[in-house]
């Protein structure tokens, strides 16, 4: 079954509002990646986090890896219409060689 869950499933925001999606795993992750998929498009890599408690920023996007390496978050400050899409986290479980994708959070931004 699905071992990497994301909440919320959907989020509608007004342009300029902030947005956060959360990624939770039942088991420890060796690393976590984040991808963005525009409507009708394919997933595009955003960032990878490896260290416990790691925080990385890309302009208005802030990514965080939990201390226990079981959860992660993506926060977007002051959303823009170009942020529309589905955001997926993907984690490598322990010592396995498979990347498990989360369920995704679909973001809609209204102008």
């Amino acid at each position, binding site marked *: 079954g699905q071992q990497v869950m994301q909440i919320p499933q959907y989020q509608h925001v007004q342009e300029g509002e902030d947005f956060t999606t959360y990624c939770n795993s039942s088991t420890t992750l060796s690393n976590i990646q984040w*991808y963005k998929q525009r409507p009708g498009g394919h*997933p595009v890599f955003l960032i990878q986090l490896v260290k416990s408690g790691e925080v990385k920023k890309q302009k208005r996007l802030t990514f965080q890896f939990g201390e226990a390496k079981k959860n992660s978050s993506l926060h977007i400050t002051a959303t823009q219409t170009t942020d529309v899409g589905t955001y*997926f986290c993907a984690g490598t479980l322990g010592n396995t060689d498979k990347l498990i994708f*989360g369920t995704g959070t679909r973001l809609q931004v209204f102008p």
Partner: protein
Amino acid sequence: NAGVTQTPKFRILKIGQSMTLQCAQDMNHNYMYWYRQDPGMGLKLIYYSVGAGITDKGEVPNGYNVSRSTTEDFPLRLELAAPSQTSVYFCASSYITITDTQYFGPGTRLTVL
């Protein structure tokens, strides 16, 4: 570099038909993957390969077969298509390990009627 390419872009199959989805990458990546994405859902790993001649099952391999005779190509074979295989299929590749960035192809939208 073209990156990861997939053909065809769209296909409609009748129940019981077979087809091969093509995937190629020109980045000399070792790892290649096949995912399926059902409407409004996440990605599920079908098969993956860590190098030419080596393949392994992912989360949902039933009804599919793969081969990896070269580093560049990783075709996915559907035998006896079923409506449950209606989905968008993405091929991806990464350089050396599973933890490297995965580069995705544009996808193949398959409908089985």
